[in-house]
């Protein structure tokens, strides 16, 4: 039993002095007699002794008061009932992979769910949903869910980028069973991992692409194990190059392409498993750095760019763009722009003129009065807002220089003290922007990713057994109030009966 306002129970203490008063301070009861003729009224008048016990009607009145106070405190009976449970089962293609014991991950998921559901009350309302189609397979009690699980097999769908909606996830308990935990799973969800933990690697098995005239390739190992890659031509399937990448390493490759080759194929050669694709692939087919900084730039800007070595990644290859100058346009506003010098991609840069920058860049967003000193427009937002990576780079550079100018214009010692930090922030923004632009270019490459391997994170998480049951409250204050009223009526009736 629970009370909505338990503090009201202190009112019960008031009844104690009331009972004392009723027991000691009240007059003797009044009774009607047919005649007083026979009563010895000549008896010496003695002081009326105070009563030491409560009359019956007083007990009833006290009971009524106690019941009323109990009713005011909002009592309710508490009953436990099982919380509804929604099971999400990953049926993507990767769940069809067989482990070392020969059983598929889906079999393992069935067994794990059966073990987990064995601890559930049989009347627990359950729903079984499947991923990635977000369809409800079955709803009912635990036994119905177990029967439905036996009928399922892995689908041929790859994983979806978008997770289930909140309505699909439901409001009760949530279990997610699969070989990869979704990133946007709510905290109340319990993830039941299945499948053997896989090695983290480059993330793909092979990629085919149309052979360019000259190949510039960058590959990076973002995994935790060494990766060996082979570049083959088609037709012919001859190994042109072999690359060995340590975890975290990045290699650039330049290759003259034979005009007879129709396509090229990059293969992970160190024995990858045969999982079908249901994960994301990161691949860049360009070795040249997108941008570099000329030494003619202002010293502050040079330091800022030089702080990030990856701005010139690609090693010895010349950058596509070379930032070799900065301008302040003729305006009252302290706007600025970057000038791109000639590099390996000089042909492209030659067409980039001031007018183009002015047209592509959203100059109105660069006015320092519109954003505070540190309010650099987030790089990803610029990438989305600008039509090309080139203009995005120009835009970020302009922002950077503009901000530096603003610092200098401010003549503030405090702002000057923050200059290194500001530079670091700007460089970080620019770095993320360059990476995004690079990935955009990679995604736009005509790749055939049919044999790309999944990168599966095997994160085991202990299932929480808490919160399995909900507390259902049934208030019964109104019944107590009714009992109090009846007790009061009975007290009045008893008092009236005594008076007769």
């Amino acid at each position, binding site marked *: 039993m629970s009370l909505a306002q338990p503090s009201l129970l202190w009112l019960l203490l008031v009844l104690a002095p009331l009972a004392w008063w009723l027991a000691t301070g009240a007059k003797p009861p009044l*009774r009607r007699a*047919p005649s007083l003729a026979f009563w010895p009224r000549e008896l010496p*008048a003695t002081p009326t002794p105070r009563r030491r016990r409560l009359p019956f009607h007083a007990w009833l009145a006290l009971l009524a008061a106690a019941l009323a106070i109990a009713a005011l405190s909002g009592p309710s009976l508490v009953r436990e009932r099982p919380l509804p449970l929604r099971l999400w089962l990953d049926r993507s293609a990767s769940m069809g992979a067989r482990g070392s014991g020969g059983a598929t991950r889906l079999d393992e998921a069935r067994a794990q769910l059966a073990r987990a559901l064995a601890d559930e009350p049989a009347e627990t309302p359950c729903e079984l949903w499947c991923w990635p189609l977000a369809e409800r397979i079955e709803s009912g009690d635990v036994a119905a869910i177990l029967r439905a699980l036996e009928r399922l097999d892995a689908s041929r769908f790859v994983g979806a980028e978008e997770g289930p909606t909140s309505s699909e996830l439901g409001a009760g308990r949530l279990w997610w069973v699969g070989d990869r935990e979704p990133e946007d799973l709510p905290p109340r969800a319990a993830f039941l991992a299945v499948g053997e933990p896989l090695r983290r690697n480059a993330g793909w098995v092979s990629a085919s692409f149309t052979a360019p005239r000259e190949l510039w390739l960058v590959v990076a190992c973002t995994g935790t194990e060494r990766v060996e890659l082979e570049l083959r031509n088609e037709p012919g399937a001859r190994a042109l190059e072999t690359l060995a990448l340590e975890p975290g390493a990045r290699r650039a490759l330049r290759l003259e392409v034979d005009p007879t080759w129709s396509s090229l194929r990059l293969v992970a050669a160190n024995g990858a498993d045969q999982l079908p694709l249901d994960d994301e692939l990161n691949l860049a087919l360009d070795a040249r750095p997108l941008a570099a900084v000329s030494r003619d730039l202002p010293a502050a800007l040079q330091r800022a760019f030089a702080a990030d070595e990856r701005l010139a990644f690609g090693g010895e290859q010349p950058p596509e763009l070379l930032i070799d100058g900065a301008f302040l346009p003729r305006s009252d506003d302290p706007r600025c722009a970057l000038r791109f010098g000639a590099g390996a991609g000089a042909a492209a840069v030659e067409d980039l003129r001031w007018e183009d920058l002015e047209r592509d860049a959203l100059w109105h967003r660069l006015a320092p009065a519109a954003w505070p000193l540190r309010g650099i427009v987030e790089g990803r937002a610029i990438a989305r807002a600008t039509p090309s990576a080139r203009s995005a780079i120009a835009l970020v550079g302009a922002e950077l220089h503009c901000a530096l100018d603003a610092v200098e214009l401010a003549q503030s010692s405090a702002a000057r003290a923050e200059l290194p930090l500001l530079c670091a922030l700007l460089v970080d923004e620019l770095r993320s922007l360059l990476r995004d632009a690079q990935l955009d270019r990679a995604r736009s490459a005509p790749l055939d990713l049919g044999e790309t391997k999944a990168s599966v994170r095997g994160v085991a998480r202990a299932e929480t057994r808490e919160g399995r049951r909900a507390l259902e409250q049934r208030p019964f204050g109104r019944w107590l109030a009714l009992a109090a009223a009846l007790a009061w009526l009975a007290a009045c009736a008893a008092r009236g009966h005594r008076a007769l």
Partner: protein
Amino acid sequence: MRFAPDFVDRVLALPWSALPKRGAGAIGERAGAKGAGLEFEEHRAYRPGDDPTRLDWQIYARSRKPFVKLQRVLEAQRELVVVDLSASMAFGAEPKLDRALRLAAALAIALAARGASAEIVPLGAPASLAPERLERLVAARELIAALERWSAAGDEAALERARLRLLERRSVARSSRAWILSDFYALGEWAQFLEALRSRSARPCLLRILDAEERSPTLAEPVEWIDAETGERWVASDPAAARAGYAERFAAHAERLRGFAERHGFPLRELVEPAQDLPELVRFERARGAR
């Protein structure tokens, strides 16, 4: 509701055999009362002053001697039922007045069933409450309906006035018996009234109606008593002493009442248990009739 729906049938089923059909009046007298009749008794020789209309002309024709017919006057028996309506009669788990009215109605019904009549007189009632008379059995239900409206509210002064008024009624002189239903608390006043009744030829029969609590009150704690008739209050601060005093006085009063009734030859019956009221009344009446 004082009277059960089958009250009349239950009363008629009781053995009221001691009640006479008709009372015997004086020979040669005429009764002017309603329901009176004549019955031949004997012949005797005519004496001067006799009513010539009583001459038996058939005997005269046979014997040429004048004889007159002596006839017994058949007079319908009339009984008086006096019910005390003072406030003390409202006392009791089952009010004494309800019991008294049931007894009065039973007497009237039994008398009517045998051709006699009864007049139920309220004593100490307001002036608007008139006596109820039952002469024919078919009117029993009207009598019961009227008695349902009676209530006990009078005080001792009203009771005394009513007693005096009753003695002045002519119906008292015509009644052969007067049933008095009361608790007889003020014995002195009741004694004068009963003696006056007997002097008017109505032989009193006393039915004392008491409640069990009245005869032996429970008193475990101090109680403030209020007199039902006078409104006077008294606190019994010592329950034990008060109970002892009450019992002593109540017993003395009952003894005085019994002595008074024996001295004057008034039958007296004390009724305490409501369930035994009617059987006790029948036994009482049969004993009176046999005597």
